[in-house]
């Protein structure tokens, strides 16, 4: 019951958020409610707008599409401190089907492994095996599983359709997909 209410509320929120949060208006540090405007660091620290306005735009979170910014080469975050580690990129996508009444969720390994190594998730957040993780939306909203990052640092949970992105009819029953095709 609580979970259903939470989900209804989130849908409303997400509609409102996308209506109000346009792309590209970043708060200046002195007005962000966190920085002390009298701290000498104000004026030395970079303003978010100065760095983020030149990256691939988006409507939510940092208002930056971080995946596109990386894939277009606008940024090149280092995979290790000395930059000598070759990141391991995994191409599989895992389809998650306990999503009624929403579309299926397709978890894409590629963009995640462009941002982090396997150990960031396996096994501390997910067992690397299809359907081995008892994920549901309630737990995600509580900040577990996908919700550890999404809603905190990665794009927010109000963006339902970025995860719930797969029409069951587009699949032939498989759970692990590779290559192009069903997004």
């Amino acid at each position, binding site marked *: 019951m609580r979970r259903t209410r*939470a989900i*209804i*509320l*989130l849908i*409303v*929120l*997400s509609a*409102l*958020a996308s209506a*109000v*949060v346009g792309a590209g*208006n*970043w*708060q200046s540090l002195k007005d*962000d*409610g*966190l*920085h*002390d405007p009298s*701290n*000498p*660091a*104000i004026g*030395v*620290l*970079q303003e*978010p707008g100065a*760095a*983020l306005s030149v990256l691939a735009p988006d409507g*939510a*979170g*940092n*208002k*930056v599409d*971080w995946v596109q910014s990386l894939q277009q080469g606008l*940024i090149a*975050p*280092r*995979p*290790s*401190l000395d930059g000598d580690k070759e990141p391991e990129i995994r191409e599989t996508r895992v389809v998650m089907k306990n999503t009624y009444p929403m579309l299926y969720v397709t978890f894409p390994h590629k963009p995640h492994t462009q*941002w*982090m*190594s396997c*150990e*960031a998730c396996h096994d501390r957040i997910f067992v690397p095996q299809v359907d081995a993780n008892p994920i549901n939306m309630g737990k*995600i*909203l*509580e*900040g577990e599983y996908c*919700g*550890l*990052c*999404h*809603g*905190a*640092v990665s794009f*927010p*949970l*109000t963006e339902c359709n970025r995860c719930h992105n797969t029409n069951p009819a587009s699949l032939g029953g498989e759970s692990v997909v590779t290559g192009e095709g069903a997004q």
Partner: protein
Amino acid sequence: MKRWSGRLLTMFVIAGLVPAVVAWAEYADVTINTQSEAEGVAPVIFPHWFHRIRFQCSVCHVDLDIRMGAGTTGITMEKLIDGQYCGACHNGNIAWSIDNCDLCHSGRPGLETGVKGGHETMGPGLY
């Protein structure tokens, strides 16, 4: 009827909140104030957006053992000077050194530890 008016009320409250939310901190800023103010310095503000332009998540969260939970890593100045956590980079080599107190300790008095612009606004924790 009663249930619906309750829901409508919630919707109005949220509609009122959203513009306020937009005026808040940059998404994913982490504030750390487990000991700072008690020890007489301003709370720490860690900007994810700034660092993720330069480093992948696992540099900090796997290689440097920084936990994905605001305030849970147990950072102290002693460890930073010893080259752990922020001190692995803020050592005058990869990034400016640890003597630049104000650049990290830049928060308003009374800030609570947490991730801002995320959980606190449109994500989990507030629904």
